[in-house]
């Protein structure tokens, strides 16, 4: 193995990684560059194809040079307790990432890197809102050495060491699970939403030309009955849904093919991916909260999605640092014990658990008034003069809103145990977030004028990851007791929160 303690260069193939980053940055900031580009195209007097070729060639050349320069100026050095990274072309930057601050170490291997046996290693640290450091195109030995350094640092901080053999996976997903992930993914609906306006644009732009084509003329000549028309529409809809489901299942295959989750000393590690192989790892001690979601499709399949959030001192990140895309009910308990060993007793991640307690029923009155009665009364007043009695139809909104509020109320539930809490919410599906009291950063108890009259309060528990957990409409005494108990647990805890 090469001496990794000296200053090292990555493989020249790291330029590919930077090329990807440059294009990602361009894609992210494309909106800003669209206006000057459009102005240039409009103002240009010459041959647009020629200008496109020259411009495109220049653009590609510049991005390649940029990517190469980024590779050229990148150096790293692994020390006993940290890794030093020097990078930057014009603006030089030196990162000193302490191993004890590393929350997770992830590796990624795309098709090209797999061919050359290279990896991209990324570090998540508590001091960043996202991934802080990365080593593109390095040998797997570097990743192994880094993992060993991080494990050694954790061991010095009290964790156990001693993994010698590959453990049995806690979760293993098969091809059937890929179908379940694909079908339960929100991407299907997102694609439908995107296809709607696109279809409208295409029909507007090319509709007239299409109508002139022989195929459409032939189709137009065929007299189809009403039932046949309905059947045709149904077939088209079915094909669209089938295609979208296919796209979503393919995406699941690409990201999670042969997904496995291992418990490895103090680290949980997952691997998966068809073309690009991803390996993510997370220190159990760094996990701040667990999130279980179950949408309608997952309910149909009897499966759950589990996410773990780690600390970030930047903006409250909505994403999860670590995801188990699919697991069974019986695996939930096993996994929660893996993430929060010995401290999760009595807490349930299963949204169907009878241990969840309801919030105050005054929530119903408050929200029906706000979301139902007020908008309906406002619409009635606005429409009465112009529409007359028809405006009374606005009142139909009240029972609809009441049904929605009732559904949300039934989903709300919380449970508090000696070491932690869980909170359930949702509308069509379920969402459960669970955390340990000692991980809480601060507590806020809020009362609206209505809540003060009814002796109620809303509790917000701020964790080091993600937005605050808001438990609405608790009895004030319960809210105050919860705040005092959590504070006592935080202040008397001898264990670190991170």
């Amino acid at each position: 193995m090469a001496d990794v303690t000296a200053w090292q260069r990555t493989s020249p193939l790291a330029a590919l990684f930077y090329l990807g980053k440059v294009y990602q940055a361009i894609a992210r900031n494309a909106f800003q560059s669209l206006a000057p580009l459009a102005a240039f195209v409009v103002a240009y007097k010459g041959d647009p194809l020629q200008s496109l070729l020259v411009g495109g060639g220049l653009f590609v050349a510049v991005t390649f040079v940029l990517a190469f320069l980024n590779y050229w100026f990148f150096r790293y050095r692994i020390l006993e307790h940290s890794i030093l990274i020097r990078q930057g072309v014009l603006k030089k930057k030196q990162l000193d990432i302490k191993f004890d601050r590393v929350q997770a170490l992830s590796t990624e291997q795309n098709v090209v890197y797999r061919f050359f046996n290279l990896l991209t290693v990324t570090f998540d640290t508590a001091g960043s809102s996202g991934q802080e450091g990365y080593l593109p195109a390095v040998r797997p030995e570097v990743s192994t050495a880094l993992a060993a350094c991080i494990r050694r640092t954790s061991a010095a901080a009290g964790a156990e060491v001693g993994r010698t053999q590959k453990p049995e996976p806690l979760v293993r997903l098969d091809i059937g699970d890929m179908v379940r992930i694909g079908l339960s993914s929100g991407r299907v609906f997102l694609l439908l939403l995107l296809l709607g306006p696109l279809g409208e644009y295409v029909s507007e732009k090319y509709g007239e030309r299409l109508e002139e084509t022989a195929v459409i003329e032939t189709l137009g000549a065929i007299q189809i009955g009403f039932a046949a028309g309905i059947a045709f529409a149904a077939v088209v809809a079915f094909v669209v849904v089938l295609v979208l489901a296919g796209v979503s299942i393919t995406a699941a295959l690409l990201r999670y093919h042969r997904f496995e989750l291992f418990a490895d000393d103090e680290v949980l590690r997952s691997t998966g991916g068809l073309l690009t192989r991803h390996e993510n790892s997370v220190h159990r001690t760094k996990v701040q909260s667990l999130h279980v979601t179950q949408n309608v499709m997952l309910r149909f399949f009897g499966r759950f999605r589990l996410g773990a959030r780690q600390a970030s001192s930047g903006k409250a990140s909505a994403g999860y640092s670590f995801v188990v895309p699919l697991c069974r009910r019986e695996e939930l308990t096993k996994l929660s014990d893996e993430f929060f060993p010995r401290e999760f007793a009595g807490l349930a991640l299963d949204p169907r658990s009878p241990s969840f307690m309801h919030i105050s029923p005054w929530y119903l009155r408050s929200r029906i008034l706000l979301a139902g009665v007020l908008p309906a009364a406002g619409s009635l007043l606005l429409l009465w003069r112009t529409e007359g009695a028809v405006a009374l139809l606005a009142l139909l909104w009240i029972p609809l809103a009441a049904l929605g509020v009732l559904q949300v109320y039934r989903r709300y539930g919380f449970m508090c145990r000696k070491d932690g809490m869980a909170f359930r919410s949702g509308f069509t599906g379920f969402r459960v977030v669970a955390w340990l009291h000692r991980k809480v950063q601060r507590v806020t108890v809020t009362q609206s004028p209505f809540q003060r009259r009814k002796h109620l309060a809303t509790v917000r528990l701020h964790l080091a990851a993600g937005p605050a957990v808001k438990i609405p409409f608790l009895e004030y005494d319960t809210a105050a007791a919860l705040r005092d108990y959590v504070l006592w647990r935080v202040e008397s805890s001898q264990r670190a929160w991170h």
Partner: protein
Amino acid sequence: MFENSEIALDELPGAESLAWRPLDSRYVPRLQIDALITTAVIAVIVLAVQYAPLPIDIRWRSWVPWLLLPAFGLSLVLWPLLSVPRKAYALRDKDLFYRSGVLWQSVTAVPFNRVQHVETSSTPLDRLFGHAALQVFTAGGSGGDLKISGLPADVAEKLRLFILEKAGADLEHG
């Protein structure tokens, strides 16, 4: 070994009988001056818009802002009379409480052993009144997690040092 002993909630240190400390009494006039400055700036902007050569004619309803502006300015000037007495903080051995809000009233508690860093800041107007703002940061939040404005500058500095000392002690012992 697994333990599951019962917790007597009544014996826990409660936050119901806290000795709340109010903000500096001169914080009300300080906020009222702020309100007057804000109103004056808006008035200048309205004047500039009314006399600027704009492509659309908005002069026909030029009286509307002059009707709304005094009402807006007055509400801004009067609001501190209601909001400042509601704001108060309480210091315990292991945490800091802050109370605020007129309609939506909230009480925030920050345990010292979760404090990442503490900051004091003051604007020129703050310095004129001898005030400073104390910001307490915990992990995961964006911006100041707890901000107490309108403290006498020396009190803010004392609080900063006290919290830092407490947070440091917890780091050493925890």
